[in-house]
């Protein structure tokens, strides 16, 4: 559904900032999250995890645990249903192997990382469950492990999983290399030949974690006749259902999954970890089973980001024109294959209009937990490396980094570095807004540095179902299938109210369980406001058409002679007759006498998600004696398309920026020589705290997305992309030394300063 022809549409409700419908529940403690429900007779489920980074599981003896009074079930990987071959699960933005999901939930032949689940128990109390775990004897044969992505590519590296290389991976490489991709166009060498300066650098970025405050939690119940219910915190209840049903050997229709309120996800709750295990335990014990992860389990055994090693080479002419760009990306998504490097390789140069560009990507297996999506997966690392080299070239020529980006900016008609030609995009406008912002021209003090970075994300649409019911009192209910992770009930309700011409307060949006509505893809790819909004508008238009038909019937005129305007059906056209408009409430009030209940619905695959660009400006001050970096000022400028609820658009921009700041400065997975994670807690996995930060200023640009009737674009992911380079460029300029490794923790910054003394 393309942008409404009147793209200068005046909105009445969309663009306002009303209170969110779930606000009172969430400020009073009433909202129910994953761990907040219980069931009669409920057991406590706990998981035994591998203490080894890599080990063959010779045997698991559960007899002593089973014999412990109060233990009602013990399960291992053998309890899963047999899989006939493998199956690829389409998760919308991402694809994953069912076999890998199963083996990640409970290790089968090998434990592949520290924290990998190997068995689980259900018991009457947490104490008994904990005691039972100690009674499970696992016979491990410890194997050599590999943690570092570059080390894992070497031919002599320990092999994490053999036989998993995609057919496009050349022979002779380590079996750990599973995927390869290549993007680009133009004559690279000719491009570099035109350059007045070429900078080539290598970068590394640590694996980071989404750091949602709510640990994974679920409550499973399976009855003797094969029906099951699952309550869990997830970004996509339908995917949970489909995966769990396959692993349990159940029909999807017999498993109802209800999404709880969700305490953050950022991509990390798009996959399953404990849910299939809870179902196994519930089936085996015949009682409801609740599993709640500890924070330590969240860090050790959910899905952090890839760790990356990246080489970038860029040529620039003296006037700031980029003549050629090349990047080689080596990502490790942990112990199972993943395709995240594809997105990094596509995104790396997406901000630029280049005649010659090439990116190569490699995915490598390591003994780390399997990566999950984290806000624009794969893009922050790649764009960090590219934007760092562009900044260094600007410094070398003494050019303004904004002018150089404007000069080379991708625009409408640009053949993107990853193939498609861009439609209307907002990068130039975003750069111009950054240039005009007072932050960009504010003076800097001694020891301070200013960094700039552009960023990009694709955004995604995907499969969506929405049902909209018109109640007889003139109110409207929307049933949608994506958990409200940051205000989407409000934005969906705003679009419904706008389309129907009724007040926002008369709309109530409800998140459906999997039995109450058709399929919805997971809440990812910044898709909800775009795609669910689109489906909501279409469902509202469906309902409007039906209401016009009812009015036509009441008036005794043709349906075609009735149109919907300002929340009411009106006769239209020369032969329609002269009837006073009938409001939604009036039509709804008599609906039982004019044909029955009125509802609209829409089920579709939403295409047309518009790409989005952002520019971040960051000022830092570095303590030259300790290497500590203080963020003094931060501004986020982003093309959001039409901002449906501007408060929550700003919130996405601020939250994404701060996650990026954490990634740049302090967050990292730290492994010991033994391959075990050393900082599995919020004490040493250092997410930004309130006192670390300044205000995060925001500028929303609204360049309409041609692929949405209101011009809506995805917003949520792009803001995590620019901070890595914005911070690195700021610190590099402040200390006079180019930083090439994230995070820029104080010891690394001090080392760089010392080297330059």
């Amino acid at each position: 559904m393309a942008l409404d022809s009147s793209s200068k549409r005046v909105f009445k409700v969309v663009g306002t900032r009303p209170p969110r419908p779930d606000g009172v529940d969430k400020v009073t403690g009433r909202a129910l999250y994953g761990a907040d429900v219980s069931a009669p007779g409920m057991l406590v489920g706990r998981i035994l995890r591998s203490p080894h980074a890599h080990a063959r599981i010779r045997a698991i003896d559960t007899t002593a645990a089973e014999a412990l009074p109060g233990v009602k079930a013990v399960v291992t990987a053998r309890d899963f249903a047999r899989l006939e071959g493998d199956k690829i699960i389409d998760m919308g933005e991402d694809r994953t192997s069912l076999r890998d999901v199963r083996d990640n939930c409970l290790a089968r032949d090998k434990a592949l990382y520290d924290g990998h689940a190997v068995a689980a128990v259900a018991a009457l109390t947490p104490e008994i469950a904990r005691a039972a775990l100690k009674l499970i004897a696992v016979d491990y044969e410890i194997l050599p492990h590999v943690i570092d992505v570059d080390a894992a590519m070497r031919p002599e590296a320990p092999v994490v999983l053999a036989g998993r290389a995609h057919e496009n991976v050349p022979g002779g490489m380590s079996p750990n290399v599973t995927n390869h991709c290549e993007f680009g166009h133009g004559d690279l060498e000719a491009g570099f030949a035109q350059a007045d300066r070429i900078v080539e650098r290598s970068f590394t970025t640590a694996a980071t974690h989404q750091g949602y405050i709510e640990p994974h939690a679920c409550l499973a119940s399976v009855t003797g006749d094969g029906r099951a219910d699952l309550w869990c915190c997830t970004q996509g209840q339908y995917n949970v259902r489909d995966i769990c049903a396959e692993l349990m050997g159940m029909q999807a229709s017999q498993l109802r999954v209800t999404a709880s309120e969700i305490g953050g996800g950022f991509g990390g709750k798009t996959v399953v970890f404990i849910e299939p295990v809870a179902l196994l335990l519930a089936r085996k014990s015949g009682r409801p089973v609740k599993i709640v992860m500890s924070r330590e389990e969240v860090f050790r055994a959910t899905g952090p980001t890839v760790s990356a090693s990246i080489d970038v080479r860029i040529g620039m002419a003296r006037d700031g024109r980029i003549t050629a760009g090349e990047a080689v990306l080596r990502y490790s998504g942990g112990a199972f294959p993943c395709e995240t490097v594809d997105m990094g390789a596509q995104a790396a140069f997406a901000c630029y209009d280049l005649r010659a560009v090439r990116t190569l990507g490699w995915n490598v297996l390591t003994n780390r937990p399997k990566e999950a999506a984290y806000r624009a997966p794969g893009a922050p690392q790649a764009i960090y490396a590219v934007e760092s080299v562009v900044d260094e070239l600007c410094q070398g020529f003494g050019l303004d980094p904004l002018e150089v980006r404007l000069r080379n900016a991708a625009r409408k008609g640009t053949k993107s570095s990853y193939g498609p030609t861009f439609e209307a995009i907002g990068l130039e406008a975003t750069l111009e807004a950054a240039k005009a912002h007072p932050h960009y021209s504010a003076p800097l003090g001694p020891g301070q540095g200013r960094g700039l970075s552009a960023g990009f994300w694709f955004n995604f649409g995907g499969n969506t179902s929405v049902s909209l019911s018109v109640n007889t009192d003139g109110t409207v209910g929307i049933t949608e299938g994506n958990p409200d992770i940051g205000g989407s009930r409000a934005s969906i309700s705003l679009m419904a109210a706008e389309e129907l011409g009724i007040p926002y307060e008369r709309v109530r949006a409800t998140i459906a369980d999997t039995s109450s509505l058709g399929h919805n893809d997971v809440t990812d790819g910044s898709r909800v406001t775009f795609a669910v909004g689109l489906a909501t508008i279409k469902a509202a238009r469906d309902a409007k058409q039906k209401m016009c038909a009812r009015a036509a019937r009441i008036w005794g005129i043709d349906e075609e002679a009735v149109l919907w305007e300002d929340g009411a059906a009106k006769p239209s056209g020369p032969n329609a007759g002269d009837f006073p408009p009938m409001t939604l409430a009036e039509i709804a009030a008599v609906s039982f006498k004019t044909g029955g209940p009125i509802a609209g619905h829409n089920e579709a695959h939403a295409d047309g998600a518009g790409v989005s660009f952002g520019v971040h400006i960051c000022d830092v001050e570095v303590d030259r004696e300790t290497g500590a970096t203080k963020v003094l000022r931060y501004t986020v400028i982003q093309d959001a398309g039409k901002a449906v609820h501007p408060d929550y658009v700003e919130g996405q921009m601020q939250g994404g920026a701060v996650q990026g700041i954490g990634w740049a400065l302090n967050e990292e997975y730290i492994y010991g020589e033994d391959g075990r994670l050393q900082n599995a807690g919020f004490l040493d996995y250092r997410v930004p705290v309130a006192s670390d930060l300044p205000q995060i200023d925001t500028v929303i640009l609204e360049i309409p997305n041609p692929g949405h009737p209101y011009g809506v674009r995805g917003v949520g992911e792009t803001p995590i992309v620019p901070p890595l380079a914005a911070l690195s460029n700021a610190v590099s300029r402040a200390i006079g030394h180019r930083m090439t490794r994230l995070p820029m923790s104080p010891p690394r910054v001090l080392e760089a300063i010392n080297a330059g003394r």
Partner: protein
Amino acid sequence: MRYVRPETAEEAADLLGREEGVSRILAGGTDVLVQLKSGLVEPDLIVDIKRIAGMRDITPEAGGFRIGAAVSGAMLGEHAGVKALWPGVVEGFELIGSTQVQGRATMAGNLCNGSPAGDAVPGLVAAAAVARIQGPGGTRDCPVAEIPVGPGRTALGKGEFITSILLPARPAGSGDAYLRFIPRTEMDIAVASAAVSLTLGAGGRVAAARVALGAVAPTVRLVEAAADCLIGTGLGEEALAALAAACSAACSPIDDKRGTIAFRSQVAGVLARRAAAIAHQRAGRTS
């Protein structure tokens, strides 16, 4: 695990002395409960000392203050007298954890946890504070500096626990300060830290000084060589540089997830220098 709440210190020491399994004292609980959660310790006995008389009191004594073992950071931070006399000790203690943790954490607990990175400890050592210890056989006093003997280990014997810490009186013209380095602004464990306590004498020269470093050795370390760099000087650039060098030289830290040997050694010197300047300024105000 058995939880008990004795009414007297003697009763507590008796319970602790007779316990054959693992026992833990509960005052603020901010370390003990974390250890329970992680399964690091599985005590058989928990002795809550908060109901024992005096444990939550701050009492003037001989020109100084006796701080009960269950006095929280929040309580100490609200005590104007202690803050005026030993500002460095108070600010060091107040750096531990969050507002929430400050509502519970105690100096005695920070000391007995035995971590070389405890933020309350260097200030106490620099202050020459003395712990009063209750044991099955009675009470004894022990300098705080002698309590920690290694990571996680203390000089306390079977059945012994700290009931209070005495912050001594100090002459006019004295000041102290504590600084630590952490990667964030709050919520981290010190990567390196330094406490300086000094007294100015005639002509504004340093008459006495004590310098203690945290997180750079198996225990909090009193560095006499560093104090010697200050004594007799007017705390000029040269003395401060010598102090920093002496502190860095006194470090024998480890490489770990929080910092490197080189980083800790260098930064400990920087912090000592900065803390000395603050202590000097404070001493000037009270002389």
